[in-house]
């Protein structure tokens, strides 16, 4: 009797606390991901529809003359999209963070709030704002260039095959530069001022002190910013869809993996949707993102020293 009573009762409350979240998360997130993986191994059309076909869909996506150019094209565009974010967005984010981190700066909070504001807006809205501003009909962009004597440079950038993707990338950079700025700023604020002062006393200029003292200390944040940019960029869809539609024109020059996924799954114009091939595209995106995250976790995080400040 006594022994029985001293045994702990079944912890019902733990189950009650955990069940709703775990159930919703499992049903609507984990299960669909696993089911998508299963679907990508199933035939989509013809005699094989609904049958297990192994990796055949992946083989089709990567080599079939009907699919492969679209996939590799979207992958290439996505890499360019990512590269432009890494080369423009993140360095500007770092520059702004360094400026905002100055010991004495009037209007710091106002700058920070305004610089971050575009990040709040829906990507759809941002796409339309820039469509209007860059439109030759309105002539605002051309007018501004003329004002600084560069009127001859204006072109309908969003409509040209060569410039559409870089333009859309820069629009995305415009919207999201606030995120690396904030992350870098937080990291910089955590560095004790004495370190910087010590370097200055030793005769290092601001430039030198930044690159040899502060930058090494914020390397972990460089990694986080890179991986967040990577995941976000390879998941992008809204901007291209709202500015260029599902066909990601002109001539697929702005097609990203996200728009390819949407088109493959839902179909467009005369081509019917193909769910198994759609999930195959999704799983390829998943593998790419996973590779990026693992690279970050196991290569970058191991190599980079994190200093306790």
């Amino acid at each position, binding site marked *: 009797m006594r022994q029985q009573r001293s045994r702990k009762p079944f912890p019902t*409350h733990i189950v009650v606390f955990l069940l*709703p979240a775990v159930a919703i*998360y499992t049903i609507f*997130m984990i299960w669909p991901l696993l089911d998508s993986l299963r679907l990508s191994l199933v035939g989509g059309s013809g005699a094989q529809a609904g049958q297990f076909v192994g990796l055949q869909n992946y083989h089709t996506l990567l080599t079939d003359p009907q699919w492969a150019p679209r996939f590799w094209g979207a992958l290439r565009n996505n890499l360019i999209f990512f590269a432009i974010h890494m080369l423009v967005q993140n360095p500007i984010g770092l520059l702004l963070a360094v*400026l905002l981190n100055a010991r004495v700066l009037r209007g710091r909070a106002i700058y920070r709030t305004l610089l971050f*504001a575009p990040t709040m807006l*829906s990507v759809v809205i941002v796409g339309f704002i820039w469509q209007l501003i860059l439109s030759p009909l309105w*002539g605002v962009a051309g007018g501004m260039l003329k004002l600084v004597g560069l009127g001859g440079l204006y072109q309908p950038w969003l409509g040209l095959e060569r410039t559409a993707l870089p333009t859309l990338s820069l629009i995305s950079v*415009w919207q999201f530069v606030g995120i690396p700025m904030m992350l870098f700023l937080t990291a910089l604020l955590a560095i004790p001022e004495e370190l910087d002062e010590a370097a200055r006393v030793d005769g290092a200029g601001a430039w030198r002190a930044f690159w040899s003292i502060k930058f090494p200390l914020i390397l972990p944040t460089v990694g986080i910013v890179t991986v967040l940019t990577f995941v976000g960029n390879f998941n992008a869809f809204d901007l291209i869809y709202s500015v260029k539609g599902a066909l990601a024109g002109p001539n697929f020059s702005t097609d990203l993996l996200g728009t390819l996924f949407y088109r493959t799954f839902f179909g467009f114009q005369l081509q019917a949707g193909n769910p198994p091939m759609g999930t195959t595209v999704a799983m390829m995106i998943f593998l790419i993102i996973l590779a990026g995250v693992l690279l970050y976790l196991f290569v970058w995080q191991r190599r980079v020293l994190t200093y306790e400040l």
Partner: protein
Amino acid sequence: MSSSTVQHNISATQTGRSTAMGHFLRRLAPHIVLLFFTAIATLPIVLIVVNSFKNRSAIFGTPFAPPLPGSFSLEGYNTIVNQSDFGRYFGNSLFVTLVSMTLILLTGAMASFALSEYRFRGATLLGLYLALGIMIPIRLGTVSILYLIVGMNLANTLWALVVVYTAQGLPLTIFILSQFMRQVPSELKDAARIDGASEYRVFRLIVPLVRPAIATVAVFIMIPIWNDLWFPLILAPSEHTWTVTLGAQQFLGQFVSDWNAVLAALTLAIVPILVLYAIFSRQLIRGLTAGATK
């Protein structure tokens, strides 16, 4: 002003460049750069909002001028009121965002409490399982989510969006909240237990203590839900369930040549978010940094 001058004098002498002109420039330079980027960040938005209150000829003739008595017009807003249902889109977005947030915060706080408070077999593993969703975009499971939603008869309902956004928001919420709940001193909880409080009562005692963290998480998860295009487009594309983002996207596509209407629609989509942002920006910024640096 004077203290900043002193500061700058010191740094200027330290680097050995203390000419009056040089140090004036050094003080000015950061502001020039920051003003330049702030202008780039805000002018496009200002341009849209300002022009939405002008008549058509003024939009094209003098796009950089503010609306004047001669050029002021609410034409675009009239078109929207008469030809679209923006009121309902707002209602839909508000419903989806508020219900999802309530579900995320309630179930997320409960799970965070369990994970931070009790030691049980598999707790670490469960924590990892729930954290998976931070890095994996839920969009990649869309095909199966659509089948699931259709199978549950939820297609073209706002509830379809609610359940998916709840699943999407939970991982980060649990990750952040459980870290904050761990910091609540255990004496507090033990005292309540000695007084005979049940575990549920202890939970209700703890929640108010992590209110700042909850507010931070709330603002942080709200924005992507409000702004999302993908799931409304796929799970609830019928007109009666359009959210502001999908409604704006459809409306803008249809009225592409009616510049007054387009500018007014964009303004209606922009202003509420920016007003909310102005109110909550401090919490949001704190949330952003807490979520990513931990």
